[in-house]
């Protein structure tokens, strides 16, 4: 159950974290 829990959250968390990082990178242009 714990492995399943970790795998599921990683599967959705990693792409979301990548998307947030890309958007933050983009947002920083506003302050440059």
């Amino acid at each position, binding site marked *: *159950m714990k492995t*399943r*829990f970790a795998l*599921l*959250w990683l*599967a*959705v968390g990693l*792409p*979301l974290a*990548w*998307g*947030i990082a*890309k*958007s*933050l*990178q*983009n*947002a*920083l*242009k*506003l*302050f*440059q």
Partner: protein
Amino acid sequence: MASAFFDRQSTVAPPGYNRFLVPPAALAVHLSIGQAYAFSTFNLPLTKVLGLTHAAADDWKLAEVGWTFSIAIVLLGLSAAVFGRWVERVGPRKSMFTAAICFGGGFIIAALGIHYHQILLLYLGYGVLGGCGLGIGYIAPVSTLIKWFPDRPGMATGMAIMGFGGGALIAAPLSLLLMEHFKTATSNGVLETFVTMGVMYFMFMMIGVIAVRVPATDWRPTGWVAPETPRQMVTRANVAVDVAWRTPQFWLLWGVLCMNVTAGIGVLGQASPMIQEIFAGRVTPAAAAGFVGLLSLFNMAGRFFWAATSDYLGRRTTYMIFFLLGIVLYALVPSLGHLGEIGGFIVAVAVIISMYGGGFATIPAYLRDLFGPMHVGAIHGRLLTAWAVAGVLGPQLVNYIRQFQIDHGVPRTQAYSITLYIMCALLLVGFLCNLALRPVDERHHFKPPGTGKSA
């Protein structure tokens, strides 16, 4: 065998099942369909399918391509309304699978449209089929989460609907990356990107299809008991979908959602030109793109923050904050522009957009409070027609009034002032709708056949 896998009965969770395994299933679907918000990244490439580096004479026009997104959003609202009852009946697994087929298949048919350069296939694929995938995929996991989290329905639905906002954050850079990767001397990469995304999103949504579970009928969170005296606006009864949409409460909530979305979507769609025109000469196109990125983050974060907060504040108070704070901020934005207060402008618009996202994410929990959990997915589906209306109304209102003012000699730096004051009036209408909301009359409560008692 395969059909048994998709049955509602096969998705009933065994005793002791960890309910936090369900939100990632919902997120897998919402992160995928949230791609719709980033469709604009395809607009220009789709106008250069034949000319590759420039738009050839026979290439599609931007206005023609723009219809694809509008059709998809209208179909989202319509399919959620039409298929809501079916989604409740067959359960989340079969409906999420259908959404995956429609959304992934929509990309493939749209790719065929690009290959044969037939815009009707693009409309049919991404707009109609993909739009149905959006509508079914949007409502399917929400009612499941409400049933798993009776103690924190706002937080649960906020988590899923946050995924819809987050989907655009993933899809925008991903589309650009894929188009760059597939670009050759004979293709601008958009066709191959559509095929890849269709397959990828289908597979990602399948994670949700496989992982989703519904709680057993008598399941309750450990240690949680339904409060003896629930809050004033929270019912312990249920209202059937066919009855719910005939009550004043449904149409008042429809007004609440429609006004909140119209005001927000109008600003969101025009954020880049707006900041560049209001602060002419001070904001570059690159910085304006950064502003749009910042708003996307607030749109996503607002969905979780406001919906989770509504569990403590109550749904009605949360929407009161959206409308009252929204009126103050919309009224302040033109003055901040005149004063050249760019920092204040950014903060005000970011908070407005967080409340726009929050409005979407809090509405399913509000529906559950008023109508009970029995048909909440189907009622939510019908309420989403407000989104379809607002999706057309908001951007048109902003574009039309801005153009009208410019045509009548108003400087571009001040061309948004009237629009923003009109948004205040819309929010006031939403505030009044929310203020008028009362619990649903007992005569509308669902009574199981033969009992004569409310369920």
